[in-house]
C-alpha cells in the first residue's frame, strides 16, 4: 500500500494515480478514496465551525434595531463593521488597547517561560540520572488530574496580601510552568535527544547548563514550538482566574469582552464586533500555525 508514493517518485504522478486507482478498485481496500458522502459530512462539520464566526461578522455590521427584528439582518458583512471596530477600540468602559497588550504580554511571557522551564525539567527527567527521578515524574503526571483551579480562594488571598490584585504578574506567575508542559517535553526529549550528543558535550567540558542550552534546547525545538502555541492559545482564551484577579482598569481581552457585554448589552452589534476583535489574532495565528496545532494534538494523543 505504501507503494503509491514510491511510484510517484519513480514513475511520476500519472502512474501513481493509476496505481492508486487500481488499489481503490479492490473491494473496500484501505487506501481507496472515500466517496462524496464523506466530503459532504466533513464539509458540514467545517461549516458548523465556521458559521458562528461568520455570524459574528454579520451581527457586527448591523445595527441593534435590525438585529432585534431579524436574526439574520444581512448575508454579507459590510463596511459598517469597521465603524464598530473603532467604537470598540475607543470605548469608555475599558481601554481596548491596554487589554490587547495585556493579553499579548501574558500570553507571550507564559509561553516563553513554560517552554524554557518545561524543557529544562524535561531534559532533566529524560536524560539525567538523579535520586527520586521516577517518583517525581509520576508526581508531575498525577498533578495533571488535580483541579488546581479550585484553589482560587487562597490564591486570591495570597495575591491580596502581596498587593498583586489587578496586576499582570498575578496571572503570569501561576502559569509560568505546567505539568503538561513538563510531561510533554520529557516524552519528546527521551526519544529526540541521543545520549551520545550529551556525552560529547560533557567531554568537551560543557557545563550542565551549557549542555542544556546548546544540545537539548535545539533538539527540543519542534516540540517546544507546539508547546508554545498551546500555551499561547490557552492564555489568550483564559477567563476564570483573570476575571477574578484583574479589574476593569487593567483587563485582558476576554475580561474586556465581558465588560463590553455588561456595559453595552443594548447594542449587541458592538459586543459582536468586540468578540470578533478578540478572536481575530488567534484566527490569524491559526492560519499560519494550524498545521502545527493539528500535529501537536495528534502527537500528544498517541503518547498521552
Amino acid at each position: 500500500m505504501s507503494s503509491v508514493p514510491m511510484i510517484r517518485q519513480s514513475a511520476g504522478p500519472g502512474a501513481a494515480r493509476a496505481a492508486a486507482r487500481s488499489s481503490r478498485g479492490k473491494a473496500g481496500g484501505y487506501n481507496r478514496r472515500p466517496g462524496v458522502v464523506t466530503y459532504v459530512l466533513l464539509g458540514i462539520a467545517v461549516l458548523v465551525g465556521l458559521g458562528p464566526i461568520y455570524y459574528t461578522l454579520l451581527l457586527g455590521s448591523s445595527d441593534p434595531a435590525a438585529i432585534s427584528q431579524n436574526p439574520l439582518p444581512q448575508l454579507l458583512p459590510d463596511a459598517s463593521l469597521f465603524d464598530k471596530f473603532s467604537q470598540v477600540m475607543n470605548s469608555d468602559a475599558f481601554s481596548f488597547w491596554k487589554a490587547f497588550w495585556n493579553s499579548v504580554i501574558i500570553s507571550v511571557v507564559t509561553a516563553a517561560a513554560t517552554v524554557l522551564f518545561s524543557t529544562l525539567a524535561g531534559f532533566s527527567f529524560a536524560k539525567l540520572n538523579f535520586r527520586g527521578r521516577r517518583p517525581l515524574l509520576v508526581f508531575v503526571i498525577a498533578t495533571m488530574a488535580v483541579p488546581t483551579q479550585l484553589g482560587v480562594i487562597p490564591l486570591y488571598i495570597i495575591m491580596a496580601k502581596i498587593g498583586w490584585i489587578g496586576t499582570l504578574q498575578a496571572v503570569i506567575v501561576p502559569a509560568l510552568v505546567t505539568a503538561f508542559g513538563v510531561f510533554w517535553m520529557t516524552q519528546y526529549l527521551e526519544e529526540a535527544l541521543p545520549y551520545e550528543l550529551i556525552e560529547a558535550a560533557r567531554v568537551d567540558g560543557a557545563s550542565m547548563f551549557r549542555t542544556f542550552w546548546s544540545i537539548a534546547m535545539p533538539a527540543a525545538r519542534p516540540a517546544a514550538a507546539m508547546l508554545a502555541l498551546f500555551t499561547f492559545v490557552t492564555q489568550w482564551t483564559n477567563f476564570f482566574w483573570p476575571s477574578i484577579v484583574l479589574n476593569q482598569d487593567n483587563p485582558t481581552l476576554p475580561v474586556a469582552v465581558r465588560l463590553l457585554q455588561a456595559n453595552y448589552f443594548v447594542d449587541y452589534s458592538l459586543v459582536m464586533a468586540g468578540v470578533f476583535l478578540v478572536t481575530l489574532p488567534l484566527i490569524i495565528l491559526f492560519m499560519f500555525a494550524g498545521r502545527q496545532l493539528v500535529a501537536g494534538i495528534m502527537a500528544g494523543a498517541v503518547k498521552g
Partner: protein
Amino acid sequence: MSVQSPPAPERVAQSGAPRPPRRVGFSQKLSRWDVKVSPYLYISPFFIVFAITGLFPLIYTAYVSVYDWALLGGQGEFIGFQNYTDVFGQPMFWRSLRNTFSIFLLSSVPQVLVAIVLAALLDQNLRAKTFWRMGVLLPYVVAPVAVGLIFGRMFADQSGLVNSALGVFGIDPVRWHVDVLASHVAIASMVNFRWTGYNTLIFLAAMQAVPRELYEAAIIDGAGRVRQFFSVTVPQIRATIIFVVLTSTIGGLQIFDEPRVFDPAGRGGGSQQWMTTTLYLYDVGWGTQRDLGRAAAVAWILFIIVVLIGLVNFAVTNRISTSGGGQPSRRQRRAAARSSRRSA
C-alpha cells in the same frame, strides 16, 4: 553522576593544558556539584510554582473554609463547619450541582460520539487531509467567552437564529434563557462547538495507530465499512475514549466561562437555571455574598467531587485496559490450543 561522561580530571589530563593544581581541584569540585545539583535545579521551577500556586492554595482552601472570612474584612473567627452547613442549606448550591452534571452530560456524551464519527471520516485516504483536519479544529481558537457571547445571541429567546430556524420547521420558539433544560442544551452546545474538533483529532491519532491488518482481515471476512467501524475501530480505541472522557470530566465539572456570559447579568439566570457550581463559587466569593470562607467550602466540596469522579474513572480505565490486553490474543490462544492438540 548523571550521564556516563568521563570524570573531570581525565578531561583536564587529556587536554594537556597544565594548570595550577588548586584551580583543577576547584573546577573539579564545581563540576561535581554541577552534575549533582543541576537535575534538581532544572525540575525545581515546576515544583516551586506548583507548590505555591497549586498545592498550597488547594490545601489552604480547607483551612479558609472553617473560618468566617469576608472578601473585604479578611479572616475572622473559627466557626467549624458552619460554612458547610450554610452551603448545604442554600438551594442555589443544589441547583448548581444539578446544572453542572446536566450540562456536563449534555456536552460530553454527544461530543464524544460526534468526535468518533468525524475521526472515522477523517481516517480515510482523503484529498486535502490537512485542510479537513484544520477545518474541524478551527473553533478551538475561539475563546470560551467569545463562544458564549455568540451562542448567547444565536440562542436568544426573541429573534434568535436558532428559534427562527426552528420556526421554518413549524416548531414553536424555545425559551432558551428561561427553561432549565433548554438553557443547558444551549450551554452544552457551546462546549461541544469548541471541543468536538479537538477530540476528533485525538481519536483520529488513536485510529491511525490501529494496525491496518485488522481492517484487511475484517474486509476478507466480508465486513462493510459500518461493521469495520463497530467491530475493529471502536474496540481498538477504547483506551483513548476513556482518556477523553476523563479529561473532559475534570474540565466539564468546573465549567464557568460559557454560563457566565450566557446573559449580561452573569448570575446563571433569573432562578439560577444555568448556574454551575463554579459560577456559584464565584457568586459566593466575589458576587453577591462576598464570603470567601463559604466560597472555600464550595471549592472544597467541588474538589472532592472531582477527585472522587476522577478516581472512579481511573478504576474503570484500569479494569478495561487490563481486560482489553488479553483480547487480541484470543485468536493466538486458540491457534496455540489447536497446535498443541495436534501435536499431542
